[in-house]
């Protein structure tokens, strides 16, 4: 599904994002990416979504070299990726329903499809009853659920979450992680960059550890080995 071959990314200011990374995440896998701030977690995710391009090496998504894609192909790549962020990124002047529908409108889904899929997605994250609420009327956990619904509504093959629980309390964090797990059970590949040691340790998933841009360990049913 996702493959990194000797990928190196050095930013213009000389900061090393990723150094010679090799990685393969198969279809339907669930993997945590852990490491300190600046260890390269976000760089790794941004290389997948092509917000960044590697200096050397190759990043493949679905067998396609992401770096070699034309500018017009990038939106198509992103349609196959659902994204969730620490800071939610919801449109404040739209309701939960409209925020999720927005993702479908942007890929020109039929209005009929939008009316059918949006309530389904909101139901899946347990927000069926809050469809008409604006983000400011929702709690942090609820907002992140809306984001998750938005990421899932177009049925992406891969869900990418960058510190999805960074702004949430422990109980809510667990709810979100469980939801991600549920999404994964339904067949979506899930990649989660996180700091949450307790959750990572308890969930017993694959853990990819980064340190200063290098993958230092990659373990099935692994543990979070760093102390932040």
């Amino acid at each position, binding site marked *: 599904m996702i493959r990194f071959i000797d990928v190196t990314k050095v930013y213009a200011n000389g900061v090393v994002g990723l150094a010679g990374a090799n990685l393969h995440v198969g279809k339907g896998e669930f993997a945590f990416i852990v490491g300190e701030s600046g260890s390269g977690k976000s760089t790794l995710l941004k290389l997948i*979504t092509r917000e960044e391009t590697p200096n050397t090496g190759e990043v493949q998504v679905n067998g396609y070299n992401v770096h070699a894609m034309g500018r*017009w192909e990038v939106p198509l790549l992103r349609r196959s990726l659902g994204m969730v962020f620490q800071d939610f*990124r919801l449109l404040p002047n739209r309701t939960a329903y409209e925020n999720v529908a*927005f993702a479908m409108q942007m890929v020109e889904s039929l209005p009929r499809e939008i009316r059918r899929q949006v309530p389904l997605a909101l139901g899946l994250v347990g927000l069926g009853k809050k469809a008409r609420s604006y983000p400011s009327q929702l709690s942090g956990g609820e907002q992140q659920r809306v984001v998750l619904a938005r990421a899932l509504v177009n049925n992406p093959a891969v869900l990418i979450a960058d510190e999805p629980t960074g702004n949430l309390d422990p109980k809510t964090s667990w709810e979100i992680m469980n939801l991600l797990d549920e999404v994964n059970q339904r067949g979506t590949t899930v990649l989660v960059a996180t700091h949450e040691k307790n959750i990572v340790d308890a969930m017993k998933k694959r853990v990819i550890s980064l340190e200063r841009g290098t993958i230092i360990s990659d373990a099935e049913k692994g543990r979070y080995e760093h102390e932040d």
Partner: protein
Amino acid sequence: MKIRTMRLLSREGVSNVVKNKLMSLASIGTVVIALLLLGLVLLVAINVKSNMDQMRKELEVLVFLNIDINDLDREAIKAYIREREAAGEVASWKYESKEDAYRNLQASFSDPALLKGMTSDQMAESFSIRLANPEDGAHFIEPLSQMPGIQPEPDGINYPQQTLERITGFADILNTVTLALMGIMLVISVFIISNTIRLTVFARRKEIEIMRHVGALDSFIRMPFFVEGIVIGILSAAAAFLLTWRGYGWTHDTLNLMLADLGFGMFILVPFEPVGMRIVLLYFIIGMAIGGIGSLISVRKHLNV
């Protein structure tokens, strides 16, 4: 892009204009000023040109005949003028006989005593000719000057070549200055609009980022800003036109009265109606163009997330 998407994104653009009232008003204000300056330059140019054309049309070739000219020579000159008139080179012409000349001279002196001793026999007959194209003066005069019966140089043929050259030269300078000013105005306007759109792009960077993340095409992302620019352009054009229409109407009435009072009745401002349509078109085309181009420039600069 599907029509419903276009509608959705256009609505977005229009609502941005309303949502960012202050910013929109500021940029409409600046574009209106730019358009008004453009209109002013254009109207001044049109008026100067119209008055100069009038002056040029009134330039006459005066041909004075010998006092003792015979009928044959006179008829030959007349025939030449008629021939050129038939060829479309002469707009109109007039023959002034000795008697006419004497009467005109009499009329121009209040005291008849001054003409004492003069008779119409001493007057010269003349032709006054208005050319269709005053620049062709030399071409018309050349053969004429060879004809018998015309007074010798420098009195025989009188054509204000210098005046004509001055007018033409002035018109050329005016045209160049007008074009240069217009060009500068356009560049400034594009700059102003692109700055305004940049602020909108900045205000909406979150939304743009989300659009990118869910896989919206670049054209989708550009569309609302493009529409916003065009709407600002249209509103500016409408406002500028209203101001120009009212402002010029008032200036036209006031200035023409003033010029007439001051004895400059030959200079008049042209009425608005015939040029109005051109100004409307110009305002809307240029308003929309600078709105659209300005927004594209600024979106292009800021789209590379």
